[in-house]
């Protein structure tokens, strides 16, 4: 898909995940890093005022920071954990993040946190429950949240909607936004046997505010979303098609905003320059789309 001389991706912001093995490097090289923003894991900064928090604040002086949570558990059948949400709000007030996000999932219960992003059935019942909870949290935070699609190793037979349909509807009803993880979609497409591009076509682009890219591992029987490797070529293709679509639609739809793009790497973390170079591929790829 190519549209001559009309597309410009200059304004797309590219970032990387902030991970503690890189703290010293980042602190020493802050003024000449070749990225536009960082994304930090919210939970890593909720209970510290020590070095991690000091470095986060120092980075924030020069870079926008997106805060990405893993514990909101918005799809839990339990009530909202207000103690957690209040801690998040304090952090948001201190850091003034450019985006705040979590996942469309549940993570266990107050008695047993499974520290996993767990799928659930996309039913009318769960929709009403989750939409209500999102509205409550957003009202308290006085800002919209983004929700990320999962990599899931099972689905539920009693779902009334697809995950994308569920997410689109949640955004329509609550004003929340979408964080589209393209690697998760690719992993699910192989594991669950569907066309990733079809699913990406179903996403309501006006809700998309951020994109995640990452690598995964092939365990033979299935792909596992490890964030431990470079992004694979199939995911790059899906990403470039998606960005083209967004840019084309942006020209006619004022509600479409070009999303921030983030490269995640959480296991077997390489040196920061390797990560920076991988993020550099995003800049190059977007520049290539303009030609």
């Amino acid at each position: 898909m190519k549209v001559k001389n009309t597309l410009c991706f200059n304004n797309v912001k590219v970032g990387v995940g902030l991970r503690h093995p890189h703290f010293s490097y980042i602190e020493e090289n802050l003024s000449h890093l070749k990225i536009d923003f960082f994304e930090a894991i919210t939970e890593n900064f909720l209970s510290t005022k020590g070095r991690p928090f000091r470095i986060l604040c120092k980075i924030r002086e020069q870079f926008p920071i997106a805060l990405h949570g893993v514990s909101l558990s918005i799809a839990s059948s339990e009530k909202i954990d207000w103690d957690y949400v209040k801690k998040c709000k304090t952090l948001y007030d201190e850091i003034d993040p450019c985006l705040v996000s979590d996942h469309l999932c549940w993570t266990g219960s107050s008695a047993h946190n499974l520290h996993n992003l767990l799928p659930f059935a996309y039913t009318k019942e769960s929709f009403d429950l989750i939409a209500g909870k999102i509205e409550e949290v957003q009202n308290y935070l006085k800002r919209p949240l983004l929700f990320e699609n999962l990599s899931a190793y099972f689905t539920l037979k009693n779902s009334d909607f697809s995950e994308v349909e569920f997410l689109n509807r949640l955004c329509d009803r609550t004003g929340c936004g979408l964080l589209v993880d393209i690697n998760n979609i690719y992993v699910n497409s192989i594991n669950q046997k569907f066309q990733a591009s079809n699913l990406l076509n179903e996403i309501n682009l006006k809700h998309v505010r951020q994109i995640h890219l990452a690598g995964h591992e092939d365990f033979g029987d299935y792909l596992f979303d490890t964030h431990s490797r470079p992004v694979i070529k199939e995911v790059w293709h899906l990403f470039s098609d998606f960005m083209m679509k967004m840019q084309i639609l942006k020209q006619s739809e004022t509600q479409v905003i070009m999303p921030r793009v983030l490269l995640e790497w959480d296991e077997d973390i390489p040196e920061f320059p390797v990560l920076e170079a991988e993020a550099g591929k995003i800049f190059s790829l977007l520049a290539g789309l303009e030609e």
Partner: protein
Amino acid sequence: MDHKKFQETFLNHFRNTHPSKDLLEMIIPIGKLSSGKVLEIYKNDYEARLLEALQENFEALWFVLGDELFFSLSQKYIDAHPSQVKDLRFYGNSMEQYIRKIEFLTNEVPFLSDLASFEILFWDVFHQASQSYQQINLQVMEHEMERVKFLFRSDITFFASNWNIGEIWKARNQEEELGISLKLDSIKIDDSFYSVFFKKNDFVKICYFNENQYKLLKIMKDKSVSLGEVLEMIPITPTEIKNLFMAIVKEEIPLILVK
């Protein structure tokens, strides 16, 4: 099965060895995997995350026990302690009490629970904010020594053990920094350990004292008494006092003099 029931059943699966038949029937597993197998993926991932947290939170325990024993202890701890924390930094906070209950470990490695307790305190101090420091004026003390009291900065933490926890902690660091394998035999493990630690810039400063010096400071902190009052409680020598105050200045222990 409604939303709430599904989540309850799923959680029960984690606690029980036998998966629920209802749960297995509700699930559409990925690829060629069975429902049981995909639930196992989540369970394995859960256990791996908690093990990783324990490895980070208890580096010195890991160093002392070695991989096999540490992983075995961790697995038992994970089985007995479902995570109730959101921040995995806090997972393992009852490790000290848990170790005390394991007779075999307490007999074989009697300092292990103290070491766990030390590591928890160490990381608590590490994650506190850096605070300002004002050097203490010893000349003021010389004239009104008996009346002097100290205000202790909030991050100052006391830790004492009958075992040489400080050397074990250092050994685990040296092994990492020097890339050499250290044996515990090279450490005088049954020397007592009296320490005060606090935040210095980004890091945690550990100061070593003898028993009298440690008690003097601890009583002054806990009871808010003057130096004169505490000297009546502890048989401390003038040399020990002199060395204590020299260390306070040299190590920049964040105390404030109050007259």
